């Protein structure tokens, strides 16, 4: 169970409206239910975003309310469940059916294997920002990596060795360019 929530479900990305609809279904407090229905409905579009009239499907257009509260604020499933709509407790099976899977994060190799064939170096910025409404947000993967590499950064003695689960995705464009002598 713990593994399912650790690795399976995306708890921090802005959820799709289908998830909000699911939360609305199982919200026991009427005011939370109403707020959730409002969030996932196209209702807000009428007063708000005009382009939504051209793409009326709520999952494509996104109402103004949904854009403001969920997308712009980067409100994740965990925050919705724990802080915003605590009365909503969807059954596990239904939640699993609808929730988005946690995606792997892609990085680019920044070194050449010709120099060090068995080492990958990659660089990234640690994601930290404050939303328009003053919520502090942190990147899930980058802050985790920063945490893992603390002892290297502080030159303190290493704790237990850390392993990352990785897999490879060749970027074929670079190969094509090299083979056609374009670069």
């Amino acid at each position, binding site marked *: 169970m713990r593994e399912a929530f650790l690795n399976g479900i995306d708890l921090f990305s802005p959820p799709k409206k289908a998830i909000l609809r699911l939360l609305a279904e199982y919200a026991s407090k009427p005011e939370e239910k109403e707020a959730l229905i409002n969030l996932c409905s196209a209702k807000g579009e009428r007063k708000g975003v005009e382009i939504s009239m051209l793409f009326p499907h709520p999952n494509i257009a996104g109402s103004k309310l949904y854009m403001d509260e969920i997308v712009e604020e980067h409100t994740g499933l*965990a925050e919705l469940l724990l802080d915003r709509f605590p009365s909503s407790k969807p059954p596990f099976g239904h939640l699993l059916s609808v929730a988005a899977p946690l995606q792997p994060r892609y990085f680019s190799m920044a070194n050449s294997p010709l120099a060090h064939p068995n080492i990958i170096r990659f660089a990234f910025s640690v994601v930290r920002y404050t939303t328009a409404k003053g919520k502090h947000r942190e990147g899930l993967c980058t802050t985790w990596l920063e945490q893992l590499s603390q002892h290297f950064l502080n030159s303190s003695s290493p704790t237990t060795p850390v392993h990352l689960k990785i897999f490879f995705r060749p970027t074929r464009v670079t190969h094509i360019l090299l083979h056609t002598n374009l670069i």
Partner: protein
Amino acid sequence: MMPQGMATSPLCNTTKTPFFSLEEVVEPWKKGLVPAVKALLEKLTNHHAPEGEGELKKQAAEPAVAAATTPVSITTPSTTPAATTPSATAGGDGGAKPAPKKKIVIKRQETPDLPPCTLAVTFHPKGETLPQSTTKEADRGEDASLFSQDRPFLSPLLGARRLTALDADKTTLELEIGTEGANVAWLPGDAFAIICHNPPDVVDKVIVHLGLEPEAVFTLSPSIESGNVVSLSKLSRYQYSAQTSLFLTSFAARTYQNSLHREGSVS
């Protein structure tokens, strides 16, 4: 889109620059579209006229609009007022299919339907032996293409370096990880994926909040509602226990796609 064509097009009301951004071209045009479509629809429903021919006009006052270039027959009686709302017209814009003599009933899409529950969860008592999971770390020495989200390579973290100053606004790090044994060839700029996980403290809070048992072991099967969305033979791969976290990810992805697909077909 060719700039020359755009310059003479009624869509474009500026000729001073050869570049046209979406904002310049589409926005002013769009402003007039919705009222025009609305007016056309009203006209159609009032006069039971099956179609109206007309060129694209950006003026809102002109009722003949793009939707009318394709023959669309709307025999909507006044009992379905939803069909005359602006949102009802947009689906027919552009590549509208002719739907002659068919009553078009478009419901108000204010609230999406409840997404279906496609998974049934069976909880297993502690100590029950489950079929061994097929998930494992890929064996060392295998071809790199064999590594995937389901079979990741365990790469040791070898070093880290801060590329930005300590007091800089943002922190940029360079990490060094080992690939010895992965047998992988790559070029600078190639991509690799890191599988991360949610913070354990948040995970535990959510589990407790939902009234679930953190140590529970469960298996998944397609729910009765889901019909044949997931075949049983596939599902047997997703026997799920504390050791087999990764399969869930791809599984959830699949079912999620399915549910999206079916939602899409509703409208």
